[in-house]
């Protein structure tokens, strides 16, 4: 029974297509109250006075919490990961206590019988703000004359770090030339179609809090609620039903979450909060605002010798909980040189606080490394008068056994070169150059761009052994008394189809029909611990391995019983379609359900020495993977830029992707296409814009533009399934599309505009910017 590799229809689809999904806002509990938040209209100010008396008297209002009242119910919010890496953390609470620090900051919480009443009452709260200068740019944040967001920190620099590898000075000394530039990436929003939301349900009799949440990390959320509010873990249960997208955002613990849980405990009633889209765009989280000053040392014949990079990150007003912005700079540092040889590399980073929304992870939060590297390589090729494909061919590692990134990790077995060559072949690179010349002669501006990435998911042996930084991934598998399987995962899916893919793995391993496997997730009272939950491509890589190991363990127990009963060695037994069959003796077959029922109902009747508990809870720590551990690929696209309108049309988009052993091609391709669409949106349409006073300018979907079906092109995909014999060779595919698409598309636009002398240093290329670059409009 081959399920792994098949386009198995999704288990999730029946309920999703018939309106039976259960998203958190669908929950209606008895006597449930509704919360809304009063948010700051200004970027930076002291709260001089707050009068909530009228709101408290408004119809339907049950409670209004101010900053001081909430502070009494909460400890300062901890960010252990920031502490561990030496980032500076201010003291902050669920609601503001002294100052507001961005437009959308949390000033007060109103709880009423209905949402309408809560919002009516919030309008009655009088607040007097004493404005302070807004810190709205890297430059302002680094200026010692600017006010500090947090008085106790003294300035706005929250993290610095530097590192080097190889001999960077020697590399630059040996260079024929150094290509230097500053590359800027703009602030964007994850913008899942479902906003954030939760229902906190507290039972005063038992002291138990059940927290229903739209989360991709239920266990991390549970931990943060317990730590901040002093709730005992055994009485704190987080439940996640269907989650309507997240892309990194819903792995964070919102200050709203802490408010909601604290209020429910205080009031002894269930309280619901559903974020509206304006709040979401304003205050849920933003990503990607980073710049890198980069210098590349090269020889005239196109050998890369070294890189120096200084990264600046705008982490917004507050640290992200539990994953602060600064932690992603480590991944950027590791991957910036990419699969290219060089002799020396230096990297440093400065993360600053500004009066903007908190920085969160967004689908491949290290994406800056691919964009900067692949963009600068095109510029290096241009300086040298070289073909950008030839420059890459000259420097790209082949994946030989002894090859390592300059930052240390082994890249034995990577397929970067194969993906590059195949992508260029599929898009017809050589033929395109001829077409492009002809089109240019007709006044049409066509461009081609391509870019290559690698992703450590699960990473090479030295990174994955022992389970990596999170100590592996757990799963539980239980054979039910009817011979069906229950699989319990620590993953928290929100579109990734784990109910399907993990069932494919368990069913094939056990030898039961796919329909006999149920995947359970999103209930911390039964699911194993994982701080991340679903994120960082952990499902395909780590969770698949954990389900495989646990299923195998259960199968061993079953076969040990069957072997005794049939007096046949377990090695001579197989399970197919739920029937245990001795090899060469099919007449002695025995239904799996028979042993399952016997083990459940009459465990004493089993053969001595066998285990009646037909379940397993295993931790997968990366053992048994034989392949490279690196995902990767090359994307290529062709664009036409219209210099009348500034519009960029994507004429073709080709993906060559290596994510190892493909579990379900339809799921994999959906992940790739969705990521590419987000990358395209990021370059052409989306910007979470602020003005210099820190006012937010993109608070609706008419200002924050998501691409539609009319803008996203057909995306052609080819899989390179390297390491076909690696049974556990499932590699991550969640991020790749979003990581490499911005580089691919900006390189194509830069290529189209090259004859006009334009240089692309910004990732955001809406029509107005394209026209500026082309010299049609004056530069702003």
């Amino acid at each position, binding site marked *: 029974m081959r399920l792994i590799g098949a*386009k198995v*229809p*999704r288990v*999730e*689809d*029946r*309920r*999703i*297509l*018939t*309106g*039976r*999904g*259960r*998203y958190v*806002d*669908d929950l*209606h509990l008895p006597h449930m109250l509704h919360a809304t938040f009063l948010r700051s209209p200004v970027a930076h100010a002291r709260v001089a006075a707050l009068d909530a008396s009228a709101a408290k008297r408004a119809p339907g209002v049950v409670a209004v919490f101010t900053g001081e009242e909430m502070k009494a119910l909460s400890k300062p919010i901890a960010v252990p990961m920031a502490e561990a890496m030496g980032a500076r953390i201010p003291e902050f609470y669920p609601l503001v206590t002294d100052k507001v620090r961005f437009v959308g900051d949390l000033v007060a919480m109103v709880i009423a019988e209905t949402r*309408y009443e809560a919002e009516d009452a919030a309008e009655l709260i009088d607040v007097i703000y004493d404005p302070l200068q807004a810190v709205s740019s890297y430059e302002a944040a680094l200026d010692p004359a600017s006010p500090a967001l947090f008085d106790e920190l003294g300035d706005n620099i929250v993290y610095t770090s530097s590192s080097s590898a190889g001999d960077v000075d020697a590399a630059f000394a040996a260079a024929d030339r150094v290509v230097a530039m500053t590359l800027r990436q703009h602030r964007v929003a994850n*913008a*899942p*179609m*479902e*906003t954030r939301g939760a229902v906190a349900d507290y039972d005063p009799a038992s002291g138990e809090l059940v927290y229903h949440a739209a989360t991709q990390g239920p266990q991390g959320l549970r931990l943060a609620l317990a730590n901040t509010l002093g709730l005992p873990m055994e009485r704190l249960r987080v439940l996640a039903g*269907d*989650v*309507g*997208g997240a*892309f990194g955002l819903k792995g964070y613990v919102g200050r709203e979450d802490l408010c909601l849980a604290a209020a429910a405990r205080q009031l002894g009633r269930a309280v619901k909060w559903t974020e*509206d*889209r304006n709040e979401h765009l304003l205050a849920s989280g933003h990503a990607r605002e980073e710049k890198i000053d980069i210098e590349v040392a090269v020889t005239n014949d196109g050998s890369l010798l070294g890189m120096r990079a200084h990264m600046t990150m705008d982490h917004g007003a507050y640290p992200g909980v539990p994953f602060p912005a600064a932690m992603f700079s480590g991944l950027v540092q590791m991957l910036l040189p990419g699969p290219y040889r060089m002799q020396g590399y230096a990297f440093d980073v400065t993360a600053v606080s500004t009066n903007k929304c908190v920085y969160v992870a967004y689908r491949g939060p290290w994406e800056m490394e691919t964009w900067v590297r692949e963009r600068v390589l095109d510029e290096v090729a241009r300086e040298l008068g070289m073909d950008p494909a030839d420059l890459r061919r000259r420097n790209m590692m082949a994946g030989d056994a002894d090859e390592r990134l300059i930052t240390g990790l082994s890249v034995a077995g990577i397929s970067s070169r194969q993906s590059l060559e195949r992508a260029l072949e599929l898009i017809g690179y050589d033929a395109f150059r001829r077409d492009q010349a002809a089109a240019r002669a007709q006044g049409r501006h066509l461009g081609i761009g391509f870019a290559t990435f690698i992703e450590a998911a699960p990473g090479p042996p030295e990174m994955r052994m022992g389970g990596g930084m999170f100590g592996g991934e757990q799963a539980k598998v239980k054979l039910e008394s009817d011979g069906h399987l229950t699989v319990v995962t620590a993953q928290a899916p*929100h*579109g*990734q*189809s784990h109910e399907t893919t993990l069932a494919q793995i368990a069913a094939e391993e056990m030898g039961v029909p796919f329909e006999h496997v149920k995947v359970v997730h999103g209930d911390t009272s039964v699911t194993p611990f994982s701080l991340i939950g679903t994120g960082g491509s952990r499902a395909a890589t780590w969770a698949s391995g954990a389900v495989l190991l646990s299923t195998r363990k259960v199968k061993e127990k079953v076969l040990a019983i069957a072997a005794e009963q049939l007096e046949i060695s377990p090695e001579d037994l197989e399970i197919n379609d739920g029937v245990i069959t001795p090899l060469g003796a099919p007449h002695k077959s025995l239904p799996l359900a028979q042993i399952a029922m016997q083990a459940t109902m009459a465990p004493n009747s089993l053969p001595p020495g066998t285990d009646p508990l037909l379940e397993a809870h295993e931790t997968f720590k990366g053992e048994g993977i034989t392949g490279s551990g690196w995902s990767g690929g090359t994307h290529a696209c062709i664009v036409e830029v219209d210099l009348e309108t500034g519009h960029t049309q994507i004429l073709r988009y080709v993906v060559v992707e290596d994510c190892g052993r493909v579990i379900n091609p*339809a*799921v994999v*391709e*959906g992940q790739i*296409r*969705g*990521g*590419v*669409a*987000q990358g395209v949106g990021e370059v052409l349409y989306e910007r979470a814009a602020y003005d210099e006073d820190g006012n937010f300018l993109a608070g*609706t*979907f*008419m200002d924050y533009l*998501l691409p*539609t*079906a*009319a*803008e*996203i092109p*057909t*995306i052609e995909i080819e899989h390179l399934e390297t390491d076909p014999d690696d049974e556990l060779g499932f590699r991550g595919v969640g991020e790749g599309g979003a990581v490499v698409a911005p580089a691919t598309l900006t390189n194509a636009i830069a290529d189209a505009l090259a004859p006009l002398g334009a240089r692309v240093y910004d990732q955001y290329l809406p029509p107005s910017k394209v026209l500026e670059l082309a010299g049609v409009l004056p530069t702003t």
Partner: protein
Amino acid sequence: MTRRVLQLSVNGRAHELMVEPRRTLADVLREDLELTGTHLGCEHGVCGACTVLLDGLAVRSCLMLAVQAAGTEVMTIEGLERDGEMHPLQEAFRDSHSFQCGFCTPGFVMTVLALLDEGRDLSEVELREELSGNLCRCTGYQSIVEGVQLAAERMAAGR
């Protein structure tokens, strides 16, 4: 706030309820009638997740007041199955792996239902234009376009 009597039919069942004039159709469907299949993605008419059919026309239930729907026949995602069988459009979306997180799905289904009902032959470019009033953040749309094309083929063959 004063409430008014509202009579309307939803998925073939008549309802009479008391609503505030400011209450949206989406809130009446989701909260008062507990038909939570209709989703709210933006509440300002851009994302299309809340699309329902009002006397056969696709409308955004977040932008309509419930009282404006008085006397109409509303169809929501919950109204598509017949005798436990999914509508051919739902089946085609399943077979095409059209969706991921599923939050935008009901809006797409209802929008496309109205579109297919028009019976026009659409090129892919035209189809993508028709779909551009609904946002999906997961899929990149290709699988949705394929699902609509498959449904159109099957429904044409079945006529």
